[in-house]
């Protein structure tokens, strides 16, 4: 069964890491990507503009009740949690911070795991906190595939290390190897 979506969580150092990953996808890469990067509450949509320079895919800020489409990279807006619904639409909400973060990676990963089950890939990148560890565990429990950036290639090691420590990470990869690996295991447009 091909993977239907990829969720990525990143925090401190995430801008650079996301750039490397997003720019490494082939133009025919055909699996939707949903990203939660920790941002300050009042940041503008710089991240979206920045990432759009490096890819043929369309990077956009996630909209409320938007349908998830192939060829798109969705970014959680500042100050909102991003959730995946079981009908493969996106929801935003303003509930309390989770792991001191809004958007929180756990919120995205846990809801995506419910929606996509074993057809989901979850990736934890650089970060200085523990957000996403619970989410990684949930993805694995639902039969999905889990990846962590190798902590020694991460600007901040704590977040990928916390994910690895759960025992639910399938693959630990160097940053540059992550897009190569994804190009291999995900379906391309024919």
């Amino acid at each position: 069964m091909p993977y239907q979506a990829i969720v990525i969580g990143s925090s401190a150092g995430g801008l650079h890491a996301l750039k490397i990953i997003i720019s490494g996808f082939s133009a025919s890469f055909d699996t939707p990507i949903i990203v939660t990067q920790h941002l300050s509450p009042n940041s503008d949509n710089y991240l979206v503009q920045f990432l759009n320079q490096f890819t043929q895919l369309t990077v956009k800020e996630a909209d409320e009740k938007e349908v998830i489409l192939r060829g798109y990279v969705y970014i959680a807006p500042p100050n909102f949690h991003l959730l995946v619904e079981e009908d493969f639409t996106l929801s935003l909400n303003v509930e309390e911070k989770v792991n001191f973060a809004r958007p929180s990676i756990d919120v995205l990963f846990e809801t995506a795991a419910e929606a996509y089950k074993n057809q989901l890939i979850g990736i934890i990148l650089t970060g200085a906190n523990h957000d996403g560890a619970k989410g990684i565990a949930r993805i694995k429990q639902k039969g999905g595939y889990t990846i962590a950036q190798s902590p020694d290639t991460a600007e901040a090691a704590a977040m990928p290390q916390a994910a690895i420590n759960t025992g639910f990470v399938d693959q630990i990869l160097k940053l540059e190897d992550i897009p190569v690996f994804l190009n291999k295991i995900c379906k391309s447009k024919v």
Partner: protein
Amino acid sequence: MSKNLASPDETTSNIELDLLLEAIFRKYGYDFRDYSRAHVKRRLYSRIKQHELQSFSQLQHLLLYDEQTFQEVLRGLSINVTEMFRDPAFYAKMRTEVIPLLKTYPYLKIWHAGCSTGEEVYSFAILLHEEGLYERSQIYATDFNTDVLETAKRGIYPTSRIKEYTMNYQEAGGKNSFSNYYTARYDNVIFDASLKKNIVFAEHNLVTDSVFAEAHLIICRNVLIYFNRSLQNKVLQLFSESLIKGGFLGLGSKENILFSPIENSYKTIDGEQKIYQKKFI
């Protein structure tokens, strides 16, 4: 039959969740069936873990027989996060684009739906006051959560947030010194009674209660995001029936009326701030 039940599979757990929401509705009258499923599931899931239960069915059993548990679940499902002058640009646009038109009415009826602990209501009351409209306004502030309404009625908020609110107020185009509107008391500030006198706080459930009638302005921010599409549409219809022709609707920064059944009956006043006006014809 074995005593050690297997943990529920996907289908089973979805059936159980449906039944749990049905049980809550039939027993207690709160209807979460058309809320964002992902949100409801996540919140109930953490409740299950907290009670060390295995399934939604077990939680259902518990809350059917124990109102206390239900109240906890209800609190867990209602998200009350709010602040004063949240999104200052929304208030700034209201001031420049909507207030001048509201000034043409001799009497105003304003409805804050999903007002939570009241910060939004006092913010708007300050704006009305500064624009000379407060005295002719009747403000209805509603929520389905009676706990938050009690806090809203008191109008007492922690001093620790005042710095942030003062900045918001200024960004929103505030005309006075923000401290004119409250009295500080130890760790709290209490908002002026003169701001409260035209506000009625009341319980109202957007899913199960009826229209409000003849409002000039409805503000409902960060509530629709908790609903699924069809419930969002239903509630937008309710707002539409409650507004006078030419009345205004202000939504949260991520909410809008695009692709909803009311879309064509409204003119966009400000697309970014999600301010709309019901057409006259």
